[in-house]
């Protein structure tokens, strides 16, 4: 079971959260092309290793939490609010692959 550090509530069990998928996608401006919306809606990378994901704290503060998580090892590197920029770990010492 994952333990996720909610920026508002602190470290909590995975069961309090709802996984909401890829957090790297940015919604296009309303006047963007259909292709841009198609990409935003359907196209997803499936990275092996570090990934930025949404975990919605439904059983807690109900904030959408951004989580940098390793899909291979399940390690959580960093968490932040919806607008925070969370760089992926690069160096091996940080758990980079």
């Amino acid at each position, binding site marked *: *079971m*994952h*333990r996720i550090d909610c920026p508002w509530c602190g470290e909590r*069990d995975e069961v309090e959260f*709802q996984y*909401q998928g890829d957090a790297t996608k940015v*919604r296009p401006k*309303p*006047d*963007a092309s*259909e292709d841009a*919306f*198609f990409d*935003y*809606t*359907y196209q997803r990378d499936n990275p092996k290793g570090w990934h930025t994901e*949404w975990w*919605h704290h*439904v059983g807690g503060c*109900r*904030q*959408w939490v951004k989580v940098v998580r390793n899909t291979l*090892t*399940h390690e*959580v590197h960093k968490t932040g609010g*919806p*607008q925070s920029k969370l760089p992926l770990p690069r160096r091996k010492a940080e758990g980079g692959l």
Partner: protein
Amino acid sequence: MTGINRLSMGGTRINRSKQINFTFDGKSYSGFEGDTLASALLAHGVTLMGRSFKYHRPRGCLTAGSEEPNAIVELRIGVRREPNTRATIAELYDGLEASSQNRWPSLKFDVQSVNQLLSPWLTAGFYYKTFMWPAKFWEPIYEKIIRRSAGLGRAAVEADPDTYEHSHAHCDVLVVGAGPAGLAAALSAAHTGARVMLMEEQAAAGGMVSTLLDEIDGMPASEWVDSAMAELAAMSNVTIMTRTTVFGYYDHNVLAALERVNDHVSTPQENQPRQRMWTIRAKEVVLACGSHERALTFDNNDMPGVMLSCAVRAFVERFGVTPGKRVVICTNNDDGYKTALALNMAGVDVALVADARIGSIPAANEVRAKGIRVETGMLPQKAHGAHTTSALSLQRADGSFVEKIDCDCIAVSGGYSPDVHLVSQTGVAPLWDDELLGFVPDIPKRRERSAGAGKGSFNLSACLTDGHDAGLDAVKAAGLKSGKASAAPKASRVEMTPPLAVWRCPGNGKAFVDFQNDVTAKDIHLAHQEGFKSVEHAKRYTTLGMATDQGKTSNVTGIALLATARGEAIPDVGTTRFRPPYSPVAIGAFAGHERGMEFQPVRRTAIHECGEKLGAVFVETGQWLRPQYYPKPGEGVMEAIYRESKQVRETAGICDVSTLGKIEIFGEDAGEFLNRLYINGWKMLAPGKARYGLMLREDGYVFDDGTTSRLADDHYFMTTTTANAARVLAHMEHASQVLWPDLDVQFCSATEQWCGVAVAGPNARKILQAAFYDDLDMSDEALPFMGVRTFTWGGTTARIFRISFSGELAFEVNVPWSMGEGMWNAIWEAGQDHGLIPYGTEALSVLRIEKGHVAGNELDGRTTAADMGLGKMMSYKKPFIGQKMAAREGMVDAGRATLVGLKLKETEGRLRGGAHLVVDKDNANAETSLGWVTSVCYSPAVGCWIGLAYLKGGLGKFEGQTLYAVNPLYDEAPAVEVCSAHFFDPKGERLNG
């Protein structure tokens, strides 16, 4: 004395002053408090405890612990009968009724042992080979045969009367295993003040220490164990749990354990669970899980009386029971000598120690000095006997026969495998150690470290140092101060001679590797020969390492034999990955309290009891219970629904609509926010007005609908469907937190703050006016259609909405949840003179189908707004979620199935949801299907069965035409006429009453 094999002294775990009576296969025996079922049976000379899985060969216990593959029994009777438990860990209690399993008619005489004669066909992969074809034989014939012959035990048929609990724990250091290494780790960590949990699978601590031979800190090992446990128990920062198996090591250092709280008594004490499941969040973990001894692989090595060397010692030392009167010990490592010394001290005759190794072996000299015969370079060849061992043939490594020696117990040791199950669960692939002949843990991937035999330290002194260091390391890694460390416990270092790899003693008979699954050395060769060369494939093909013991005693031997077959080294073959649980866990323990009515919360509305009093039949809608219909005495379901839906249109009805999702939305930008969520516009909506809204998902399909009102300039009140309430809230949270954090909008769910009823029908206004007489002007001017008003009722704020799902003059009234019952009663009383009836979700559905209003059945996640006939609602003046994708080619295709109405043309029969619409009922298939029926009802207003459907081409192409609603499940294909979905009052005149 309780049994012929009970020794006159010894037995650290038994209490000789307390005799316990029990039965096995109906026969009465007695044992002592502290005995296991296995030790008590052995004390009586009962070595036959089970029949093997496939060949039904007689089996006795091989081990003295949870890794037991053979002595699998049923405990207790009736509702508490539990199959597939291990006699070696089943603690005895007075009145225990145990029985063997997988035998008929009796354990001694098992008819299916003729399977042995069929063994050429029952080899590796026999399921795949034997029961291939014809396929139609599978269910009626093959499966029955397999189920009968290869069965394990029988589960109780009735519901389990006992309870199971879930508990949670946090600690700095979790120590798994209370053997010498685990105790040393717990002590060193606890002395620093860290919060320590120590979990031990067995009822008592001490692990594999030899109570007769080992000394720690200058005292007998058992004394040291007792004092260590007493010291730990006295510390407030330490929690000790025995009879607790840590069975799973999960992500982020979360571990799961099963505490057998009341398995050692006949019936759990009042208010106590049988078992308790623990979820432990540990900062750091010390794995002191010990090791498992392996058997030697020789012909008939599964004969009752053949037992692991450490198990023989454990029975003697812990329970004062000898597994035999005359013991031969076969070993490839030093463990056999330890057993020889222990047996010798206990006064048991050791006929011979046969060591596979040659050369100088210091341990051998010590044993010889006691006058015990030791032969080196000698291997077991074949065990002899019928239901129990009577003799053993011995051989040299080249297979040449040496001698046959009489004995009733053969203690075997094929070396030790560190128990790497938990560490393997963390994703660490174990490393092969060529000197130890076992897999040891590799570098940790989680916050854990191994200690003691589990790490490959087989020497007691190393175990203690290991454990001590691991405890301190864990404290340091947890970021705690280590303070002044205590000294490590000490034992004298014994010089050990490395084991010799002997994976198959020469022979052509049945030599078992995996006793539980009847996998022989030959099976592994065969699997390899047939192409199952990967260890994972060979495991599945032969079933090696499966079932309750998960191959604890057999995996390494199996892998070694596979390596031999492949002509490769063991590390190149690798291991299968271990997965939780470490040992079997009852489903009941996983379920805990979450069973029956406690499986999930039941949500009842504030006026649940009002409906109950009027005889409502309730239906589950998610977690909610909603009144489905209100049958009168003698009335059937259909009659009740008919009466309710008819009566609403004639007089009036009241319906509990509290379960609709309700969301209060505030803020300067609330209107803009709704504009972006819904396909239609909201900014121009005047305060005091409501509007029907439809929202799409980002992919352009319809997500949810509902009525949203504007209560003030910066205050809107949204309703959602009952089913989507939580999803809509999450969707809005995403929109406001992630997409548009700049908007000034705040909102929260108010579903359980407002109790709501709908009052519909020609008399609705009269009734409500009477109910709220003094407080509310309900005239058409004051409260026009789609009007909303806030008023004071009973000293509190209430809301009334003139909206209609039924097409009748209708209102929805909301009051604070706690006032719900008062509101219902007020309306109910006022309605008595006006023909008010309660109606449930079924009548609600009839009324909305008659009006062609969409609901959950139509909002199935695959429909566009236009499919539902609501395409014109889509605003082009503003952007909203789903707008772009809703314009894609396939979404606006003219050939899409759109909403139509259906009338059953036949006087007999009925319409059914899910039926497919076709032109030619004799040619109905996926290709000719033109659409499907979503909702149906018998309509009192129309006077026949009607339905809503999605139809390719829609009304434009098919209005007035006849199609067939094909339902192969019921073998029906009634004729239906396609019509507008607005069956009743298409102009909407009845909204005005």
